[in-house]
């Protein structure tokens, strides 16, 4: 009886986990929030444009006040690391990853997070 319960429970659990895995594997849109160093409306445009040209990105939106970039993407085509790398390549910090220096230098002055020469 007890064994049966355990078995059933484990079956249910594995089903659930398979289901979730299936869901993640079949993609469907997944959302990620990245804390960036963007500071102005122009950054919003730069970043959203950079995201629009990334493979697998469905949509993206930067909230300038909180500096949080929300990206909806297809996880069969890309992943969080690639997206964060793309953010750094656009000249902005992505969570703990620092911005790429040349890209940062290329930004319009208003887009530079305070001065860090």
């Amino acid at each position, binding site marked *: 009886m007890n064994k049966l319960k355990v078995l059933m429970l484990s079956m249910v659990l594995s089903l659930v986990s398979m289901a979730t895995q299936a869901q993640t594997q079949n993609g469907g849109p997944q959302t990620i929030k990245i804390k960036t160093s963007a*500071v102005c409306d122009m950054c919003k445009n730069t970043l959203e444009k950079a995201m629009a040209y990334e493979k697998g990105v469905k949509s993206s939106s930067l909230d300038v006040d909180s500096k949080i970039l929300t990206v909806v993407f297809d996880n069969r085509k890309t992943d969080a690391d690639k997206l964060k790398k793309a953010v750094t390549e656009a000249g902005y910090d992505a969570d703990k990853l620092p911005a790429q220096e040349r890209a940062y*230098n290329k930004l319009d002055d208003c887009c530079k997070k305070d001065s860090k020469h």
Partner: protein
Amino acid sequence: MKSPIKNYTYYLLPVLLVILLVIPAAAQKLTGKVTDLTSPGEPVIGASVAWKGTTHATSTNASGDFILNFSDSLTSEIVVNYVGYDPQTINVKGKQSVLVVLNPKSTLKEVVVEGQQERFSSITPTNSQIITNRDLEKSACCNLAESFETNASVEVSTTDAVSGAKQIQMLGLDGAYTLLTTDNVPALQGLATPFRLNYLSGTFIESIDIIKGMGSVLNGYESISGQVNVKLKDPEKTERLYVNLYGNTQGKFDANVNIGAQVNKKWSTAILLHTAQLHHRSDRNKDGFMDLPLNSQYNIYNKWKYNSGYFVSEFGVNALREDRLGGQMDFKKGSEVYYGTTSETERISAYNKTSYTFDGKPYQSIGLISSASNHVFDSKYGNRIYDGNQQNANVRLIFQSIIGHTGHTYKTGLSYTYDNTEEKLGQTEFKRTEHVPGAFAEYIFNNSNNLTVVAGSRVDFHNLYGTVFSPRLNVKFDATKNTIFRVAAGKGFRVANPIAENTASLVSSRAFVFDNDLQPEEAWNVGGSFTQYFELANRPGAFITDYYYTSFTNQIIADMYTTHGQVRFSNLDGKSFAKSFQAELQYEVLKGFDVKAAYKYYDVQATYNGEQRHKPMIPEHRFFVNLGFATPFDKWRADLTTQYFGKMPLAVGDNTHGLEMAQNSKSYYVLNGQVSRAFKRLELYTGVENLLNYKQPSPIVDAGNPFGPNFDASMVWGPIAGRVVYAGLRFKID
């Protein structure tokens, strides 16, 4: 519920608290104010102020004031940043309060909506337009000539049906009256004029500023109709790699590679390479002549930039070689049987710009600009040999500061120009060596809100033509934030190069006849513009109209009217003027769908041998419509430009030796279109020029008899080649 007393205490308490806190802390705080250089006294609100090297930052309040704690500082320098202004680093050692004056960016980035820039600047005192990089990508690659295709103010016309030379026109005047500068250094002047638009590849260019009418005296006395300033790629900001490949149905191929690198923290460099090749002979209008000359060009530009904050220095070297061969289909170099034109050009030029900004005085700077070039060409037009070489050197020292406060700023300096020109046309030689030291000053008045006055003048001491005085004035008045009036007036002076500016006539049977004692050209230009920005259904638009009047006190008149078979160059004896009117409307009709429409009217006349006549090849009426469509983030873009050219008078001699010749051209339309698709690093484009396939009927007069007395390939007023389809790709790594 609230008594008045209670209300007071509500306010008083925090105020008292602040006072209590501030008094002892005063010594440890830096207070300051941030104001605008162009509107003195006007606070800059929301500017970011930070201690250099730290993340301790604050923003200025509604009166432009800010406070920083000294305890947060690492160094004694603060950094001030604001949208649309040049950032500033200021040493505040030993100071408790500072006044920071921010300088608006000269790059006019003030309005940026989805990567588009406002094309009519609202802040410059001159009537300026900008052709952005995005605009440049709309037109068929690959040199400066094509860059103006989507702009209404500057026209590009083919000078003749054989050599492929192209000229720009502004305010109804030849390109020679427009000052061409690269990064504000005069470039490609004098003998380089005939093919100069081919010498700057579109891929070298970051953006183009067009200033209509009289501009600043700082760049010399030569500009009369305006200035075209080409901003080349900035080594600090350009792509690390940029490749552009282009090909069209005429067999023309272009390849461009740009490489940008940050060598270390202070040095950066960019190498720009360009080649254009056309080795296919085609004659689609069946007149026995190639529609386009064969062409081979190699062009390299290397720029270096040093930036240490106070010191900024830029170096550039450009070298190019070009071979051209046009004419009858069977013409080969050296052929005596067939008619043809050949030209070989080698050019090398270099420049340096160094500026120093005074410590703690961001409004005060000193700059040294120097440039030098050597231009050599050998050319042959039929049996006529035209060879030449020119050496030019130019040095300018400019000091900039304020009088009392930033409402009164001034720029003053000294300049020296050396120019040696040697030309040989047939057996006749022309030589000229100029030494021109000069001095100039410009005063800029700016009241705090709506009036800017720029008054400048320069005096130059020309070794051949004596003292030249050039006064210039620009006034800008903002009636409201969106309504701007501008007035420009002034005098320009230049020494003409009659042959180089009229190479078209070399491609004809006309004899070149020169009067003795040709004098420099001198003209007054007065004009004004009205700009209205508006918003309709939440979409931005602009309406601009302008009128300019240029009146020559002397001009070298190229008279093709009076004597058949002759072009005679003489000093102006009578009146020569150009009236130019333009009205333009820009509006984003739907999101991503831009419309630009312009109408232009020209009246350009001169006295030819005692008779007042219209200058040949200038249409009275012109229309221009550009439709631009882009999906979000410019993934897809499509453009369609329509141009209408009205009738132009042709320079047909009064005695035509029995040949039937039209006195006027026909009016016609030219349509150009392009579609492009952008990916992350790659962009593909394809387009059509002259979609309607309009061709000027028999562009060459008496093409069957090129060595005869009636041959004339210079009366070109329309397209020669018909429809051209092109495609290409751009690949960029940022």
